[in-house]
């Protein structure tokens, strides 16, 4: 049991919570091994790693959501065992999870205090106290939200704020945040960080997970790096550089992240004419030409994904229309968009991209069922052949084609989504956050693939929140702010400053 700690900069005796050699498996997959982590009061520790590295599993073990298979967990130096999230919470551990955990039918106030309502006489819920407490929390986070309104209909950023308020609602000694800033804008992130700093001064320990390295270096004291389900590095942040962190995460040196190939720009493939959806986006017009990669940039919530959904016919626009190669698409008809040659890799891979319970093969060929049929009956062998062909071309790592898609890692799942659309030989491929939450290796493969497609004359429309990706890949950058196109920047004009200014509404260039 007395194995030596991996190089820890933290005095283990002072740790408020500690994991020693914990492991966890789901079925045959070992999601966590050698899980060593300790948090001491007043420490803000970053937990870094590619997706699938085991961070979320470690967080779930700490939060009492899953039980570890082996190893020890210590709170204040004493061995504990969490049987449920309730136990973790009683031990003073607050967790903000990546997945939304809110109750859409209930008020913000009830969401925040759920399970821990303030009680009055006869153990009845004291609604007045509940309201004022939650109001106080929201004020502290600097947001103007009415505690009595239902959560249903809140923007993603506001939902994230409610999650944070929920985690702050009790005397947490340990605050764990799994990508809390993904949907937040600059000022909101700053506000959150000032709260985190206050907590640190009050002696709380914070575990911070983020993919934004600048944030990590701005706020964290120490860093734990995970790779392939194991903790591989533990150091003070002052001893690390961003490059070194990435190297530890990936386990190898990275070549260029954004291979840009020159492609011949051809005729317009997609023309969007004054597209409007009330309350979401307004008067959006632009073109994407063959061989061109156009990026749609902007803050989360600026209406970029919604424009893409309307183009593909998921949502019905209130005004305006879409043309593909000069032919007008009927509104709100995904099948028509597909037949016109549009492919759409959506934002939410798990919910919108794949049917997780169906096999890899069936997911990869879902868009081609008609073509794979003879006399109305699907030809199973042809189905497998097609799936296998794309698996090869995209270097998909899988066990069996008949395995459910849910068995694959995030990056490989994204490859299946890509295969599904590439199999339709699209003229226009819309990619909504194509590299979000996938490992660095797959990420550069996706970028290479995009370049390849463009060079073969496919028009590509990419939505991305990652500025380096946008600047590295795009021939042209369209920037949206609050539902409107605020800038169209050529490759030469686009740099961090010009894109951010347009995305935050400080620049209003006439959009084409």
């Amino acid at each position, binding site marked *: 049991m007395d194995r030596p700690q991996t190089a820890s900069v933290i005095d283990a005796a002072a740790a408020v919570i500690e994991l020693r050699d914990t492991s966890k498996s789901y079925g045959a997959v070992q999601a966590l091994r050698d899980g060593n982590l300790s948090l001491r009061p007043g420490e803000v520790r970053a937990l870094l790693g590619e997706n699938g590295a085991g961070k979320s599993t470690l967080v779930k073990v700490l939060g009492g959501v899953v039980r570890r298979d082996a190893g020890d967990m210590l709170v204040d130096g004493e061995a504990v065992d969490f049987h449920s999230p*309730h136990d973790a919470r009683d031990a003073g551990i607050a967790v903000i999870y990546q997945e939304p*955990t809110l109750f859409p039918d209930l008020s913000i106030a009830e969401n925040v205090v759920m*399970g821990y309502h303030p009680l009055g006489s006869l153990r009845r819920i004291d609604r007045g106290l509940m309201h004022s407490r939650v109001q106080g929390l929201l004020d502290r986070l600097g947001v103007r939200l009415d505690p009595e*309104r239902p959560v249903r209909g809140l923007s993603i950023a506001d939902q994230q704020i409610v999650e944070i308020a929920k985690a702050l609602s009790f005397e947490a000694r340990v605050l764990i945040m799994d990508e809390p800033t993904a949907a937040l804008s600059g000022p909101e992130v700053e506000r959150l960080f000032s709260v985190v700093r206050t907590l640190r001064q009050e002696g709380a320990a914070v575990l911070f997970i983020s993919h934004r390295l600048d944030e990590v270096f701005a706020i964290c004291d120490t860093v734990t790096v995970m790779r392939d389900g194991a903790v591989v590095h533990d150091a003070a942040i002052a001893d690390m550089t961003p490059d070194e962190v990435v190297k530890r995460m990936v386990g190898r040196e990275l070549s260029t992240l954004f291979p840009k190939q020159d492609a011949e720009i051809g005729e317009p493939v997609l023309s969007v004419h004054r597209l409007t959806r009330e309350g979401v986006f307004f008067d959006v017009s632009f073109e994407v030409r063959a061989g061109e990669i156009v990026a749609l940039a902007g803050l989360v919530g600026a209406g970029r994904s919604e424009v893409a959904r309307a183009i593909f016919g998921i949502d019905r626009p209130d005004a305006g229309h879409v043309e593909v190669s000069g032919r007008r698409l009927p509104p709100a008809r995904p099948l028509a968009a597909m037949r016109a040659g549009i492919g759409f890799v959506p934002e939410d891979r798990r919910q919108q991209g794949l049917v997780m319970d169906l096999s890899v093969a069936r997911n990869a060929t879902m868009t081609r069922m008609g073509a794979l049929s003879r006399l109305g009956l699907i030809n199973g062998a042809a189905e497998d052949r097609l799936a296998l062909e794309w698996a090869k071309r995209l270097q998909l790592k899988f066990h069996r084609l008949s395995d459910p898609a849910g068995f694959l890692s995030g990056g490989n799942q994204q490859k299946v989504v890509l295969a599904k659309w590439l199999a339709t030989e699209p003229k226009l491929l819309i990619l909504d956050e194509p590299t979000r939450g996938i490992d660095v290796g797959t990420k550069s493969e996706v970028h290479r693939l995009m370049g390849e497609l463009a060079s073969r004359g496919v028009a590509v429309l990419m939505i991305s929140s990652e500025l380096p990706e946008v600047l590295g890949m795009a021939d042209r950058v369209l920037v949206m702010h609050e539902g409107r196109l605020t800038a169209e920047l050529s490759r030469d004009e686009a740099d961090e400053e010009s894109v951010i200014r347009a995305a935050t509404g400080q620049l209003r260039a006439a959009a084409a």
Partner: protein
Amino acid sequence: MSVDTASDVPADSAKARRYTEWVFRVRELGIVVALGLLIAVTAILEPRFIETDSLRNLALNASIFAILAAGQTLVLVTRNVDLSVGSVLGLSAYLAGDLLSSHPGMALLLVFLAGIALGAACGLLNGILVTWGQVPALVVTLGTLYTFRGLSFLWTNGKQVNAETLPDSFLNLGTDSILGVPILVIIALVVLVIVGQWLRDYRAGRELYAIGSNPEGARLAGVRSERRVLTAFVLAGALAGLGGVLFTARFGTVDATAGVGYELTVIAAAVVGGVAIFGGTGSVYGAALGALLLGTITSSLIVLRVEAFWQQAAIGALLLLTIAFDRLIGLRVDAALRRRSARRAG
């Protein structure tokens, strides 16, 4: 972390609150209005409808359904369903009849407790299969609907309990009044208020809504979901058990078919009363009003001498109208909330 600073509430906040509160109130108010209109129209066409006897019957009939609907609400709110209520009612109704006809001197309280306990035991079985066995509630309660009914048939073996064999003190419960209000109605009201307040003002009650609104979120928030869902099923079973005893008191004659087909009427009543079939919203009072409205429709059609055949069709149509209406209102509210959210961000 005590941060109870007095804050300046945003300008539109009070309005927003009133608006959302209004939406939730209007749902129950809508049924009251529909109920009032129905009674008024029927009364104009046939004044006998609002004579005491007629209204009394109406209230008596609705009482048992209101209690069952309250129990169903507890389960529906958690995104589950209890199809076995009719069968549970049948079991406990026969138990009450059997106990009293074989031991006429038995204390009535004991009979009630026995009926409720039997119902709670049935609910416990449902609950255990749903939580511990992880079998979907629809499957579990469809199965126990059959099993409990089958047990009823085995137990009664073709016999029935007749009113003559039951003590008057018991049967009077179904007919007597206190200060002009039938005892059955008083019992129903007391039950409704207790369950309603529990669901509204107690942690356990609120947690039922959380579970129905987002089961995974509830678990992550530390809600002991399994225990809560189990409680909901046990209470729903206990209320169905109570309903069974009251059924016997009211009708006097009980055989193995008591309560056959009640499950769908009870669910219909709850849904008409604004309880979402997929959990998260609705109140016991709404469900009870729904039960009253369904009962009133039946009575008024009878009084108006509309062919009895239209009753079922009318109830079905009403259910469809209310869910369609709810849906349209819900879409409007969603849109309004989204606009408000967008404005705030802008």
